[in-house]
C-alpha cells in the first residue's frame, strides 16, 4: 500500500497526551478555573456530607444497635440529629447546584477547546503539500477533523474532572475508615492490588482495541467517500454489488474491532463487582473476629459496610472512565500525530510580499519526482521574461503539468530552484506568491455554492461587475445566460451539474478576474469545443498583455499566441524556440506537429 500508514505503534504516552490536551484548555483557563473551583467546593460539600453522614450513622445507628440503651437517651440523640437535617438538605442541594455549574463550565471549556483544535487541524491539513493529499484519502482526513476530535472531547467532559472528584472522595473515605479502625481498613485494602492489576490490563487491552477501531473507521469512510464520488462509473459498470462487497468486508473488520472493546467492558464490570464483594467478605471475616473479641462494635461494622460503598463507587467510576478514556486517547494520538506533521511546504517567516510581481519566471536546474527514483522533471532550466508568453508542449507525461505546479509551489523542487522575479519561490510569502501567480488547473473543481462565490474565490473583494466582465471576456456569458439564475445559480458539489467544458470556462473567468502577474493555463482549453476555444483564444490574446503567461498545451493550435515554445520530452526540456525555428529543426516538435496534421 502506498498510502500513509494509519497504524499507531508507539506505547501509550498517557501523561504526554493528557498534558497536550490540557494545553488546549489554556485559552479558557478562566472558565476552567471556575469549573475546578466548583469542583473543589463540591468536594468540600461532599466531605461535609460524609462527615454529617458519619455523625448520623454514629449517632443514630450506634445507639440503636446497642439495644441496652433507653429509648429516652435515643430521643435525645435524635433531637441533635434533627438539627443536622437542615444542614444535610442544604448540602445536598448545594452540591447538586455546584455540579450543574461545574458541568456547564467544563462542557464549555471542552467544546471550545475542541472547536479550536478542529480549526487548527483543518488549517494544518490545508497547509500540507499536495503530495500529502495524494496519499491521504479525503475520507480519512474528514474522520480525523470531525470524528476523532469528537472522541477526544470525552477526555475533558466525562474524563478528567470526574476522575479528580472521585479521587478526592476516595481519599476522604479512606481517611474516615482509617480513623474508625485502621487495622480493619488495611485488611479490606488487600483487594486494591488485584484491582489495580485488573484495571491496568483492561486499560492496555482497550487502548489497543480502540486504536484498531479508529483506524478501521477512517478506512471505511474513505471507501464510502470514494464510492459516492465515483457513483457514475460504479453504476455504468454494474459495480454496485462489488462495491457493496468491499464496503461490507471493511465494515465487518470495523465490527470485529468494536467487538474487541465489547469484550473488554464485558469483563471489566463483573471483575469490579467480584472484587468489591471480596472486600465485603474480608470485612465480615475480620470484623466478625473483632466483634467476637469485643474489639469492634456492631455500629462500627455498619459504618464500615456503608463506607465501603462510598469507597467502591469512585473506584468503579474511575476504572470505567479510564477505559472509556482509552477511546479518546486513541483518537488523540491520531489527531496529534497529524498535527505534528510539519508541512513540507511552509510560508517562510517574514516572506517576501511584493505589491505586484513583475512576472519573471526562471527554472534553474530543477529536478522533481512524485515518487522517489522516477523524476517527472529532470534538470530543467529556462527563463521567461516579464510579459512574455511561453507555451509548454510535449507528449502526455512529459512533465509540463509538473512545471506548472512548481511555479506556484504546489510542490517544492527536489533539486535546483524555481525563481519568480529573481527570488527563489521558497522566499515568498505563500499567499503573496499564489496571489500573483494564478493557475487554471487541468481539472476544475467548483465548490457547492453560487457561481459568483466560486468566481470570487481568489479575491473576496472583487465586484460583481468585474466578475461579469471576466465572464464575458472568456465567453462564459453565454453559459450564464443559459443558467436559470445566471451568476447566482447554485452549482452542486464539485460542479457536477456543469460539463467539463463549462467548468473550465468558469475557471478561466475566475483567473482572469484576479488579474495576476503570471498566468498559468494548464491544458485549460482541452475540453472546450472549437467555437468556445476560438473565443478563449481571443480572450487569451488580450489577457496575456501586461502579464507573463505559461500555457501548458497539448494541442499545437492552442499555442499560436506564444512568443516562445518549450518542448518537453520525458521530463527534460529538449527544444526551445519560436514555432518557425522549431518546425525547421526537424526535432521532437516537428514530429509532434506532423502527427497532428496527419490526424
Amino acid at each position: 500500500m502506498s498510502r500513509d500508514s494509519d497504524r499507531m505503534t508507539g506505547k501509550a504516552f498517557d501523561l504526554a497526551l493528557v498534558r497536550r490536551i490540557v494545553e488546549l484548555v489554556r485559552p479558557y483557563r478562566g472558565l476552567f478555573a471556575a469549573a475546578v473551583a466548583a469542583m473543589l467546593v463540591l468536594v468540600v460539600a461532599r466531605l461535609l456530607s460524609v462527615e454529617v453522614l458519619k455523625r448520623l450513622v454514629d449517632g443514630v445507628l450506634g445507639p440503636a444497635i446497642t439495644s441496652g440503651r433507653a429509648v429516652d437517651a435515643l430521643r435525645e440523640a435524635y433531637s441533635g440529629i434533627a438539627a443536622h437535617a437542615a444542614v444535610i438538605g442544604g448540602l445536598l442541594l448545594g452540591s447538586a447546584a455546584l455540579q450543574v455549574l461545574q458541568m456547564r463550565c467544563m462542557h464549555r471549556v471542552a467544546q471550545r477547546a475542541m472547536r479550536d483544535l478542529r480549526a487548527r487541524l483543518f488549517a494544518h491539513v490545508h497547509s500540507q503539500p499536495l503530495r500529502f493529499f495524494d496519499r491521504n484519502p479525503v475520507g480519512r482526513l474528514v474522520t480525523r477533523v470531525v470524528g476523532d476530535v469528537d472522541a477526544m472531547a470525552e477526555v475533558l467532559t466525562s474524563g478528567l474532572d470526574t476522575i479528580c472528584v472521585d479521587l478526592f472522595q476516595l481519599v476522604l473515605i479512606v481517611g474516615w475508615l482509617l480513623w474508625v479502625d485502621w487495622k480493619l481498613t488495611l485488611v479490606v485494602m488487600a483487594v486494591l492490588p488485584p484491582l489495580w492489576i485488573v484495571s491496568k490490563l483492561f486499560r492496555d487491552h482497550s487502548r489497543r482495541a480502540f486504536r484498531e477501531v479508529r483506524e478501521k473507521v477512517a478506512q471505511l469512510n474513505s471507501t464510502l467517500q470514494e464510492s459516492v464520488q465515483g457513483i457514475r462509473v460504479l453504476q455504468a459498470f454494474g459495480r454496485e454489488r462489488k462495491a457493496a462487497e468491499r464496503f461490507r468486508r471493511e465494515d465487518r473488520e470495523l465490527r470485529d474491532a468494536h467487538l474487541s472493546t465489547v469484550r473488554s467492558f464485558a469483563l471489566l464490570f463483573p471483575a469490579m463487582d467480584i472484587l468489591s464483594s471480596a472486600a465485603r467478605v474480608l470485612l465480615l471475616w475480620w470484623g466478625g473476629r473483632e466483634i467476637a473479641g469485643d474489639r469492634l462494635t456492631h455500629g462500627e461494622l455498619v459504618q464500615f459496610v456503608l463506607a465501603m460503598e462510598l469507597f467502591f463507587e469512585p473506584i468503579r467510576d474511575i476504572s470505567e472512565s479510564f477505559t472509556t478514556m482509552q477511546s479518546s486517547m486513541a483518537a488523540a494520538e491520531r489527531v496529534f500525530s497529524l498535527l505534528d506533521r510539519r508541512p513540507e511546504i511552509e510560508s517562510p517567516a517574514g516572506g517576501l510580499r511584493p505589491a505586484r510581481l513583475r512576472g519573471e519566471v526562471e527554472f534553474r536546474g530543477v529536478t522533481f519526482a512524485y515518487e522517489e527514483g522516477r523524476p517527472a522533471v529532470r534538470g530543467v532550466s529556462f527563463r521567461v521574461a516579464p510579459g512574455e508568453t511561453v507555451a509548454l508542449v510535449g507528449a502526455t507525461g512529459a512533465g509540463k503539468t509538473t512545471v506548472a505546479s512548481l511555479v506556484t509551489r504546489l510542490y517544492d523542487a527536489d533539486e535546483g530552484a524555481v525563481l519568480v522575479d529573481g527570488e527563489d519561490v521558497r522566499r515568498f510569502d505563500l499567499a503573496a506568491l499564489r496571489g500573483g501567480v494564478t493557475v487554471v488547473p487541468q481539472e476544475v473543481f467548483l465548490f457547492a455554492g453560487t457561481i459568483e462565490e466560486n468566481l470570487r474565490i481568489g479575491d473576496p473583494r472583487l465586484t460583481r461587475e468585474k466578475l461579469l466582465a471576466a465572464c464575458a471576456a472568456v465567453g462564459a456569458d453565454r453559459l450564464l445566460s443559459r443558467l436559470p439564475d445566471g451568476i447566482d445559480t447554485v452549482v452542486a458539489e464539485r460542479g457536477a451539474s456543469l460539463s467539463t467544458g463549462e467548468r473550465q470556462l468558469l475557471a478561466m473567468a475566475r483567473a482572469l478576474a484576479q488579474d495576476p502577474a503570471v498566468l498559468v493555463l494548464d491544458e485549460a482549453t482541452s475540453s472546450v469545443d472549437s467555437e468556445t476555444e476560438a473565443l478563449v483564444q481571443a480572450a487569451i490574446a488580450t489577457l496575456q498583455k501586461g502579464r507573463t503567461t505559461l500555457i501548458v498545451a497539448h494541442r499545437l493550435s492552442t499555442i499560436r499566441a506564444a512568443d516562445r515554445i518549450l518542448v518537453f520530452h520525458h521530463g527534460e526540456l529538449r527544444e526551445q524556440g519560436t514555432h518557425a525555428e522549431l518546425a525547421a529543426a526537424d526535432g521532437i516538435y516537428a514530429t509532434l506537429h506532423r502527427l497532428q496534421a496527419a490526424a
Partner: protein
Amino acid sequence: MLRPYRVPIAIGTFSILATQAAQAWLPMLFRNAVAALEGPRPDTDLALGWSLVFLLVTAIRGAFQWTMRRTIVGASRDLERDLRDTLFDRVVRQSPAWVSRHHTGDLMSRFTSDVEAVRMSVGPGLMYLANTVAVLPWAIGMMVAMSPVLAAMNLVPLALLAAGTRWVSPRLHAASTDAQEAQAALSTKAQESFAGVRVVKSFAREEAESAQFRERAGRALDAAIRTADTQSVFYPLVGLLKWLGFVLTVFVGGRMMARGEMTLATFLAFHMYATMLLWPMISLGWVLAMWERGKVAMGRIAAVLESEPSIASKPGASRPPAPAAGGASIEVRNLVVRHEGAARNAVDGVSFSVPPGRTLAITGATGSGKSTVLATIPRLADPPPGTVFVDGTPVEDWPLDALRARMGFVPQDTFLFSETVGENIGLGLAEPSPERVRAAAAAARIDAEIAALPQAYATLLGERGVNLSGGQRQRTAIARALVRDPAILLLDDCLSAVDARTEAEILANLRDVIRGRTTILVTHRAAAAKLADEVVVMDEGRIVERGAPAALLAGDGPFARLARRQTLEDRLEAA
C-alpha cells in the same frame, strides 16, 4: 429491525433475568452473614460461610452480566454493521443526480454518527432498560416485604426522577437534533474543502476556508453546549436523589432499629436493595438521552433508506432477446430532458438511430446537450419512457444490470478508484482475468505505460488516480470500457485531455476498437467525428445538422465549418 438478532437478544434477555435473579439473593445472603454476628454470641464461622456464598453468587451474577454484554452489545454492533451495509446498498443504487444533490459529507455523517446513535439506543439502551425493568419488581418487592414505610420513603426519589425525565426529554430531543445537523454541516465543509484542495491552494484560499470551517465549528459548538446544558441538569438531579434516598434510609431506618422494629441485618439488606435500584435509576437517564439521539438519527437514516432509487429495474423485467443479427442497436425518439431547476430543456426533441455495428458522432458546442443525451442510454439519467431504445426495447424495460452490461462507457470525468490499475481496468468484470485486462489495456494503448509503472498492473492509484497524467487516465478509462467486450461503446469526449501524439494514437486505435460495435462518440474534434458513419451536430439541445461526415464536409454547415477551422489550425501550424 431486530428480528435477525433474536438469538443473541434472547440469550441476552435471559442473562438479564438471571443476573437480576442472582442479584436478588445477594442482600439476603449478606443479611444472613451479618445476622450471624448479631446477638451476644457472634458466630464468625457461620458469617464467613455466608459471606463466601455471597462471593460465589456475585461471581455467578458476573458470569451472566458478561454474557449479557457480549450478546446484547455484540448484537448491537452487528445491527450497526448491517444498517451501514443496507445504507450503502441503497446509496450506491441511487441515481447520480440524487447523489450529487446530497453532500458527500452529509451522507458520510449518516453512516457514522447517526448509525452509532441508533446502535446506542437499541443496544446498550435496551439493555439498561431491560435491566431496570427486571430489577424493579425484585428490589421493590423485597423492600416492601421488609418495611413498607421505609420502602415508600425510598420510592419518593424514584417518582421525582420520573418527573425530571419527562421534563428533560423534549429539550434534549431538540438539542440533539441541532447538534447532529451542525455536525453533518461540519463534515460536509471539511469533505468538500479537502477534496478541492488544488483550487484552495492555487488561489491561496487556505485562510478563508479555515475561517468558514471555524464558523461552522462554532455553530456545532453552540449546539453541543445546548445539549450538554440540558444534560447537566439531569445528572446532578440523579445524584441528589441518590443521596436523599441514602439519608432517608439511615434516618428512618435508625429510628426503626432503635424501636426494635428492625434488626441490623435487615437494615443492611434493605439498604443493599435500595442501592441495587440506583444504577438502573441512573441508567434510565442515559437511556432517555440515547433514545432521543437515536430517534433523530433513525429519522435521518430512514430518509435515505426510504427514498426509492428513481432509476431501477421494473419488477419482473427480463432481458430482451438478443437481436437475430447479433449486433446491438440504439434508437432515440424525440428525447426531451430538463434538469431539475433549469430554465430550459437541456435536450429538446432529439431523434437518431444507430444500427448494429455503426458509429454515430455527436458534436456541438459546450453545453449543447451532447453528454446529457449519452447519459440516458445507460440510464445514468432517466429519459422519459419510450424515448430511448436499445435493441428495440425501451431502456426502462431492460433489467438495469443487463442494460449496462451491454455497453462500455467512457465518462467525461475519468474517475479512477484508489485500487490497482489492473483492478480499475477490470472493474466491469465479475472475475477479472489478467489476460483480459492486458488485452483491454493494449487495445486502449496504455499497456506499455502500465508496464513501466513500478508494480505494473498491481500499482495502486492515489485517491483520484493522481499519479497518472490526464491522458493516461483517459486511456485507462477506455481500457476499462473495453474489458467487457461490449456490443455498445459510449465515448464521452475521450480526447479531451490528451496531446497531439496521443490523440493520433487513440484515433488510429479507435478505428479498430469501434469496428463491429455500435458506437456513440461524443466529441468536439472533427478528426474523431470523421470516424463515424453519421454525424449529428447539436446546439442548445437540438440537432442542427446530420449526415455522413463526407457529405457534411462537402457542404457548408456547422460541421464543415468546424472541420475547416480545425484543419486550418493544423495547416497553419504546419506551414
